[in-house]
């Protein structure tokens, strides 16, 4: 289809002029392409927003949904949902509950190990708990129906937007929005929380309560998109960094910047995933391919302070 055809079809829809018969172009455009574009932006924006929130919350620019084990936990919940043949909403709910449980476990482990570099303990705890979730995922893969469920699980774990349907979006958008609203409303206060509990409380914030709200909101956003797109790593780590380089660390501006960068980035990478080879490349592979080197670069320059 040409760009002109596509634009004409969109214009017809917007002006309320329903074509007499649904053309192939309409089907492709409104049920395959546009949902996918929307999904890429939604997933990228949500992961970046969650990552920015986690980084502010844990006062650590190296944490992200992946590193805290949220992605792995939400992934485990989603795999379990596929294994149990649940509908999308059920998969999202399981992803959220187990994702939240994973963050809780990581924080518990990190809090019980005292007298060591807290950031290191947090990251290690996330890696270990993530590995635990990974082993349960593997177990579920062994138990899954090899003809029906296993391919779905495997492809989904690689992270992909290829199977996105319009219905997926209609359930995911409200759930992701439910997570975004508190983050957006509280976004300036997250700065205060990033000073640490004691200072935040001395400045007049109920730090424990605010932190729980932010963790729940960020985890809900992560889980909602992991449930439809699988594990797409690194976006939640790298995009908040890029946003911080552009607009500075003030969460007031950082949150919208991270969302826009994340949305744009994942749309770009998804377009690459569709076109780079004859067979579609799972997007998770591409984001890791880009993200891992960038992470190493950030690590190397981290001693000079966080941009």
């Amino acid at each position, binding site marked *: 289809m040409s760009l002109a055809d596509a634009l004409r079809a969109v214009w017809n829809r917007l002006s309320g002029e329903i074509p007499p018969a649904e053309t192939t172009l309409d089907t492709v455009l409104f049920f395959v392409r546009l949902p996918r574009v929307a999904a890429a932006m939604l997933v990228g924006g949500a992961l970046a927003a969650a990552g920015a929130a986690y980084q*502010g919350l844990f*006062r*650590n*620019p190296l944490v992200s949904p992946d590193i805290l084990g949220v992605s792995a936990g939400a992934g485990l919940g989603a795999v379990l949902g596929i294994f149990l043949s649940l509908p999308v909403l059920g998969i999202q709910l399981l992803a959220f509950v187990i994702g939240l449980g994973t963050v809780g476990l990581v924080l518990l482990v990190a809090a019980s190990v005292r007298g060591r570099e807290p950031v290191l303990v947090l990251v290690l705890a996330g890696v270990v708990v993530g590995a635990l979730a990974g082993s349960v995922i593997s177990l579920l893969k062994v138990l899954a129906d090899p003809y029906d469920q296993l391919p779905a699980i495997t492809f989904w774990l690689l992270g992909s937007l290829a199977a996105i349907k319009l219905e997926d979006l209609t359930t995911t958008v409200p759930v992701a929005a439910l997570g975004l609203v508190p983050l957006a*409303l*509280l*976004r*300036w*206060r997250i*700065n*205060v929380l*990033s*000073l640490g509990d*004691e*200072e935040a*409380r*001395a*400045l*007049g*914030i*109920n*730090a424990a309560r605010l932190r729980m709200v932010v963790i729940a909101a960020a985890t809900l956003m992560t889980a909602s998109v992991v449930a439809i797109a699988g594990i797409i790593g690194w976006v939640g780590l790298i995009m908040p960094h890029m946003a*911080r380089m552009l607009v*500075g*660390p*003030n969460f*007031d501006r950082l949150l919208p910047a991270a969302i826009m960068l994340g949305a744009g980035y994942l749309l770009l990478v998804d377009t690459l995933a569709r076109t780079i080879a004859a067979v579609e490349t799972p997007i998770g592979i591409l984001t890791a391919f880009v993200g891992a080197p960038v992470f190493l670069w950030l690590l190397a320059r981290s001693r000079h*302070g*966080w*941009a």
Partner: protein
Amino acid sequence: MRLEAKRLGFGYPGKPVGRDVDLAIGAGEVVCLLGPNGSGKTTLFKTLLGLLPAQGGEVSIDGRRLADLARAEVARRVAYVPQAHAAHFPYTVLDMVVMGRTAHLGPFARPGPRDHGAAMAALETLGIADLAGADYTRISGGQRQLGLIARALAQAAPLIVMDEPTASLDFGNQALVLREVRALATQGYGIVLSTHDPDHAFACGTEVALLHDGGLVAHGPPAAVLTPARLAAVYGVPVFVERLASGHTVCAPDLGARAV
């Protein structure tokens, strides 16, 4: 406004640090808390601020128990100046100072022009308005300390608790901070600060509290509390306390006569 501790016990559950501390800070007063390393000055301050639960006795502000006040209500009455630290994120100095406005903003509110105005006014009071746009992680320790004091001013609480505001500052910056403390007390702020240097108590204190072995061993005007005998008992070294011809009182450890 008056912050009062009565028979206050402080420390951690199962690990008490001090007990039976009576202390009060009112408008225009500067209470200097002196005590050797590990005597629990920071723990006492955190208990005074309600950041740690009292392990006995109580803290009250104008007769209302601190434990009954919400964090924002406490923050509108008492500001905290922690020891200067490096922030994790490179906020600008202005961003940092504006965070002092938190207790005056609703949960979903963001600081507006009035809050930025209050923050700038605080920076100007401390003479560091030109640092407003600077990266908080890249200024000197003394500038960070002044920034934290500015944040406390922006918080507009009549009482300020300062934890070793002169620690890690050079000689000149220490004097700068002490001068500000004195100026703030003149404006009506009530200030309690901890320090390692008895000279600071003579320089700006209206009262001194001497913390040793988990309790206040003395409490009163500097000249009455800081006697050579008491300082020697608390710090474990003989100390001179001398009044200079200029009217200043200074302390020095007695290391024995030195051949010049």
